[in-house]
């Protein structure tokens, strides 16, 4: 009893103290309170599209990438321009690649106000955030302040990122389709006069791997892939290609299948195991996080996701020529539109203004390039109207990751880029076909316990199976059994249910 009382006393003490501390510190961080005060400027911006009537507002924006020394310098220029256009200034904070996800999780969960954040399928997960209510629905805002952005985007970008009919982020206009290619070290292709133009499947590839294995020294890895390798299979993976739940690519009825029980998987795994036993892969592939084949040049083939003129980029960074052959035609999956997006936070003090800014970023060539390449004469110089050359200051103090900063198709080209680069992107996107569940987003909440368990089983079995490191005859049944115990069937049933409902609403 006594201890209880003294505890209460102590607690009251701390509360008083923390109140005090909060009081004296409050002048340090005025930023945190600022957006709430400017709340009413939203109303002003709402009624009038006219810039002069907008109250000044500072947009707080989080971007991914290594913090850059000259960011403040560039922002000064940006602000001059945005003040004129929408009477807003921009305050950008960048978090490094590996830190971004954790930082954003803490910031959003703690309810710290901000306006715009970078989001995607691979960091600061777009779907998780939208489901948790972190992001603002943008349907109306886009119609009001983002018409121009909507026009430049392939409509499938927005279609793919909708959740229950609502848009939660503005996708960056870039490659939309997803296409896996086999990449080859051209040195060996030439040496053995191989014809790679028709290499699609693992079976097509096998004889080439055999040639390399038989004729080259043992330190050349014929198929140089790491742990994440998966043979391409004709499925639309509903929960990401980690989990074995999918719909056949050519499916008409939208039936969700357990991929483990399909003949396609069985054959692929058999082939992989054959390739593995023949020694075409690294023996420790199942535990290899990454592989440094590109650096050493001691490899023949691997796989990668492509985009127009990707070979050029790969060859340039490798320092020798790399050629490719597609595994399949480009597809648009639900998640492929979510490779890079910007979302507006529910805690934003002025969502209208945030949308106006995003609209500028995606349609205004000057602003877009300013943010990406910095200041002309300082960070780059122009060679012609649309072609630039980097100055040393760019590499040193303003190297921004272009694909995270809005409409890629507006950016300047470099001298060694093909002149039709962005047209090729457009063509590539137009040629991409929609996957059968394109636009459908699964909500894992009702089966989150099962999904958690399945995640574990996946990591236990799939890398070893997909890389051929184990014999599928004994290992696949084991995996299947364990997946079922973890509740795979229940998850499939839930996916089917949600997919059917979604199909209904589509009709």
């Amino acid at each position: 009893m006594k201890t209880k009382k003294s505890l209460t006393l102590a607690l009251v003490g701390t509360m008083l103290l923390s109140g005090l501390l909060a009081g004296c510190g409050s002048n340090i961080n005025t930023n945190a309170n600022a957006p709430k005060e400017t709340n009413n400027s939203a109303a002003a911006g709402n009624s009038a599209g006219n810039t002069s009537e907008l109250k000044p507002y500072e947009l707080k924006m989080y971007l991914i990438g290594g913090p850059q020394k000259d960011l403040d310098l560039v922002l000064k220029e940006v602000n001059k321009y945005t003040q004129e256009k929408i009477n807003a200034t921009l305050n950008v904070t960048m978090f490094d690649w590996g830190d971004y996800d954790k930082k954003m999780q803490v910031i959003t969960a703690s309810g710290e106000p901000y306006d715009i954040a970078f989001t995607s399928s691979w960091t600061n997960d777009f779907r998780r955030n939208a489901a948790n209510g972190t992001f603002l629905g943008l349907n109306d805002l886009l119609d009001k302040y983002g018409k121009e952005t909507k026009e430049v985007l392939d409509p499938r970008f927005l279609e793919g990122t909708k959740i229950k009919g609502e848009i939660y982020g503005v996708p960056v206009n870039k490659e939309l389709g997803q296409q896996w290619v086999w990449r080859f070290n051209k040195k060996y292709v030439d040496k053995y006069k191989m014809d790679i133009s028709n290499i699609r499947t693992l079976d097509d590839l096998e004889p080439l791997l055999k040639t390399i294995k038989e004729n080259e020294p043992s330190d050349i890895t014929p198929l140089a892939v790491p742990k994440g390798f998966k043979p391409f299979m004709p499925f639309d993976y509903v929960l990401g290609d980690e989990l074995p739940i999918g719909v056949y690519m050519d499916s008409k009825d939208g039936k969700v299948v357990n991929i483990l029980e399909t003949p396609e998987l069985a054959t692929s795994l058999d082939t992989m195991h054959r390739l593995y036993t023949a020694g075409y892969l690294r023996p420790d592939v199942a535990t290899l996080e990454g592989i440094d084949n590109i650096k050493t040049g001691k490899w023949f083939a691997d796989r990668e996701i492509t985009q127009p003129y990707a070979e050029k980029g790969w060859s340039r960074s490798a320092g020798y020529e790399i050629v490719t052959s597609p595994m399949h035609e480009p597809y648009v999956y639900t998640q492929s539109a979510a490779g890079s997006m910007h979302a507006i936070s529910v805690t934003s003090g002025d969502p209208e203004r945030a949308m106006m800014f995003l609209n500028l970023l995606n349609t205004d060539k000057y602003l877009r390039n300013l943010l990406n390449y910095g200041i002309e004469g300082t960070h780059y110089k122009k060679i012609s109207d649309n072609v630039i050359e980097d100055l040393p200051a760019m590499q040193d103090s303003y190297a921004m990751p272009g694909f995270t900063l809005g409409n890629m198709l507006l950016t300047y080209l470099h001298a060694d880029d093909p002149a039709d680069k962005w047209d090729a992107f457009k063509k590539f996107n137009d040629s991409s076909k929609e996957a059968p569940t394109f636009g459908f987003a699964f909500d894992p909440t009702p089966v989150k316990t099962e999904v958690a368990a399945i995640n574990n089983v996946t990591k236990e079995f799939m890398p070893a199976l997909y890389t051929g490191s184990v014999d599928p005859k004994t290992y696949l049944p084991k995996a299947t059994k364990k997946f079922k115990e973890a509740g795979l069937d229940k998850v499939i049933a839930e996916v089917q249910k949600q997919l059917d409902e979604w199909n209904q609403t589509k009709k």
Partner: protein
Amino acid sequence: MEVFKRKPKEVDNNAITPFWNVVLNIIVGIFAFTCVFPFLFVIAISFTDEKVLALNGFSLIPEKFSLAAYQFVFNTGDQLFRSFGVTLLVTVLGTLISLFLITTYAYVLSRRSFRYRNFFSFFAFFTMLFSGGMVPNYIVATQFLHLYNTIWALILPIAMNAFFILVMRTFFQTSVPDALIEAAKIDGSGEFRTFLQIVLPISLPGIATIGLFCTLGYWNDWFNALLYIDDASLVPLQAMLMRIQNNMEFVIQNSMQMGSSFEIAATLPTETVRMAMVVLATLPIALAYPFFQKYFVKGLTVGSLKE
């Protein structure tokens, strides 16, 4: 301070026999060697040419010597020195603050006459197991205390730790006899003076241990910097290293989904740079270690106290 004396140097006739001395030296020596071995490799890799490393793997003597990694790190301009300064400041200031908080709290717990010592022991212990988690901590530190982007964010959240307190308490309990405190009291020494002039000097080995642990804790901490610091001038050394490490892992794991990954991969530092950072972040603290060591290898005699 005259109350204790180091044992004078003399022929130790209580030493173990030469046979056992050799045997134990060999066993401990081999184990100690396995402990430094990886570190030697880290140093070797940091001086190896990047291309050669990728081609041939690593070896204890660099096949092609190169300073490129260090050049890269030092080329970040004053960032490295600044970070070093931040780490140094945080470590020294933090250790002093921690030692003050820990020794005072632990001393009270060690006093058998103090009625609520069990309550306060439990009060501290409970926090070892239960914590609010990252987000509530973040809210307290940023929204209540406004520590964001201040040096205090790197010190205060790890200033205390129940583990250190309970270890310190045990040190006090075993090395400070109750009779000594009673005697001091009778001599008219105030509680606080007794603590400063009698208790602390006797407990020097324990304080050195906890001091060492705190120093290491501050030196190695990167997590608070991740949460609370985005001002480049306040980023400590380990956080710089951790960023490199996190980035490398992240890009390897997510390159498939990111698309344009070669763009990013090109900006990432290499394996040799990572190792150079490890060397730069570890050597200074490893060199500071002997400073603490003298307090727990030599030992003290408290015999004179009892007179």
